[in-house]
């Protein structure tokens, strides 16, 4: 794999720094607000560890857009919407003709799932298939690390 697995310490530190800045101990915040702040810090920490990945840029752009109503980061990717329209007619034809056209059906299924994955991974709309898998790999690593860090924190606070 190309990238190194992030150090959890760095994640934790960034996470906590962000938390502190957000001043979540303010009594005025509701639970959900706090939760959102925490999640924001977590996402930021995650994205900042892996700066060169597309998904992290996309994540940062999303977060900043959400809270500032404007894109802070210039969008670097081409906004390509990848269409899978061809598949439906293909599928119908395959089913009509012969059930043995399993490959066509399989391709349809794969295409659908790929689209779901694009929705899940931040920035996935603008990637081709190969990059999508790369970014998913990266994203998964960091998600795992993030979950671990948060679990540790929860344990520590019990």
């Amino acid at each position, binding site marked *: 794999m190309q990238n190194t697995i992030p150090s959890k310490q760095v994640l934790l530190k960034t996470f906590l720094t962000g938390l502190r800045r957000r001043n979540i101990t303010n009594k005025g915040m509701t639970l959900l*607000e*706090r939760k959102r702040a925490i999640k924001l810090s977590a996402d*930021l920490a995650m994205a900042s560890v892996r700066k060169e990945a597309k998904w992290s840029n996309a994540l940062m752009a999303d977060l900043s857009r959400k809270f500032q109503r404007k894109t802070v980061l210039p969008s670097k990717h081409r906004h390509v919407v990848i269409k899978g329209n061809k598949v439906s007619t293909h599928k119908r034809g395959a089913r009509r003709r012969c059930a043995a056209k399993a490959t066509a059906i399989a391709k349809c299924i*794969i295409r659908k799932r790929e689209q779901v994955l694009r929705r899940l991974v931040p920035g996935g709309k603008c990637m081709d298939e190969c990059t999508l898998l790369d970014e*998913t790999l990266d994203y998964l690593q960091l998600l795992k690390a*993030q979950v671990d860090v948060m679990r540790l924190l*929860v344990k520590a*606070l019990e």
Partner: protein
Amino acid sequence: MDLCESNGLEKRNGDRIDPQLIPQFGAPIGMVPVSGAGTGTASPFPLWPGMPNLSNPIAEPFNPGMLNQSSNKFPYSGVLPPGLPNFPSEPGFIERAARLSCFSANAGFNGLMNNSISNQAQKGELNSMNIGSGSSHGNQLKNQGSIENNSETNEGAEDKISNGDNANANGDSSQNDSGSKKRKRTNQDGAMGQGQASMKSQEEAGKQTSESKKEVDNSGSKNTGKNGKDAADVPKGDYIHVRARRGQATNSHSLAERVRREKISERMKYLQELVPGCSKVTGKAVMLDEIINYVQSLQRQVEFLSMKLAAVNPRLDLNIETLLSKDILQGRGACSSTVGFTHEMFHSQLLPSQPGLLPPGLPGMLNPSDPFRRAINTPLSAMNPFKDPNPQMSTTWQDELHNVMSMNFATNPPLSTQEIATKPSDGFQL
């Protein structure tokens, strides 16, 4: 993609060839009686032209080695073909070598020598010798084929010779044959790895590591050897050189398509490693499904844990400073207990895969769904030892972070219905 251990190989010595394999090669061409002592099971040896005295049936120099009929000693001890280096006795080397060699992912299992190196070193398939020449017999031989099957398909002395050619030419052709190199392989790695792996291929049936999943049927370098050399050599761009294999279209489009497919399958392999429980999954569709489920479960976990942290808030402010000042994750028991958390959770805390994560004290917490709990319990040993990422932040990133971090949180974005729905806040106290 499981290892096929049904070849009946039991001995897994690091530097020996299982003699049970040898008869497979030698049978079709007639057994050459090696030992003059008329033992029950003669152990023939394949005709490798590189090996000295092979054609001599009364090869006395071999006899002392060959006489070990009952044992599993290597019959060629000391009589290695000159082109091939000695085996390393360290099993871990095979994996590393194979891993290095499998960096260039090539689609299509041509069954050639180099191709099968990492396959076999990792999966323990013993197809290399037979399949190496069997490219003419069809490219459909799968890795899971047993040696017996291969021996049936492999006939003729010329096959053995070509096997030998492949074996000897491994070191060379692996460097000549570009294959579709995704990453540059050092000559040494290529030669050594493949030379040794090809020898090891016959003995390694018992390798089962997570790297075996990384290996693709289709990946591994293509060794056209001297049999299946194809003419077309289409340079693609600056760095990828693809050579069309025998019997394949040399159209540039199909080559590009093949390269693309290989890339994708290589990445699917990596993902298969990462996602727990996907070792037995073959096929893109199921794999994608698992990946999607996993990503969703991880995202849900983050939500859940952030909710939890929010609920534990009163102690959070006390702890943040302490946690920041001390490096928790580093030291064992480095944290003080003055602020009320325990020591022991911090020692080697990178594998918190315990079932009882939910604290009983939190009332009204929603029960994790099955995939969530499954995800919690998955062992996190997939995480390798950590390396510190580059701590330097580019200026753009720094600016961006500052911008985002200084966001005023009092802007109060509208609550999403999803949050309210999934996280019941009945039992929480503020």
